[in-house]
């Protein structure tokens, strides 16, 4: 597999207008690189990041086959 699966939730999903997309992994080393690939605007200051369903950060390393999710602060419970 040579792609990264990107997922969006809640308000971030509304901004992108879709629940997710696959992007080619070539050249992408961090979650920040993934964001720059999918968005022309900088990430919001309170953006949360998960890599393979575990919390990470924009500087988390990513590789082909990973799942990267971007979402706003959570409100469960």
């Amino acid at each position, binding site marked *: 597999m040579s792609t990264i699966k990107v*997922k969006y*939730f*809640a*308000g971030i999903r509304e901004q992108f207008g879709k629940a997710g997309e696959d992007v080619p992994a070539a050249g992408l080393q961090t979650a920040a690189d993934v964001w720059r690939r999918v968005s022309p605007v900088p990430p919001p200051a309170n953006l949360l990041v*998960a890599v393979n*369903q*575990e*919390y990470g950060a924009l500087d988390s390393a990513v590789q082909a086959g990973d799942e990267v*999710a971007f*979402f*706003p*602060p*959570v*409100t*469960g*419970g």
Partner: protein
Amino acid sequence: MAIRVQAGAFDPWQELADHEAAQAGSVAGKAGGAAVFVGSLRDFNQGRAVSAMALEHYPGMTEAYLEMISREARSRWDLLDTLVIHRHGPLSPGEPIVLVAAWSVHRADAFAACRYLIDELKTRAPFWKREQTPDGARWVQPDRS
């Protein structure tokens, strides 16, 4: 230790009764205390009446996160059992959203673990509430109280 994320409504008190009936012999008769928290949808929030709610979640990560905090609670306190149930999907005011329960030999561990589980869940579990108000639908903002 059990966790469940589901779309359907649940009766937290029936879930507790069912769970206790099924507890292994290592728990039944050994637990001096059971601490329970039930969170339900209020009909008023942040200045507006709430008529309905849609609860979004991250399938896969929600379950993994609830399992992780349950394991963490059991490593921090001397517990016999834990139970976490959380809904997603459409909800109406008055309906339970989340059940957290912890069983221990003595009450201190059960109280502390129950508080830890609900606080951690509210801080980091990947759920997002969208509430329906007279002014339209809006995403609930995190409450840091």
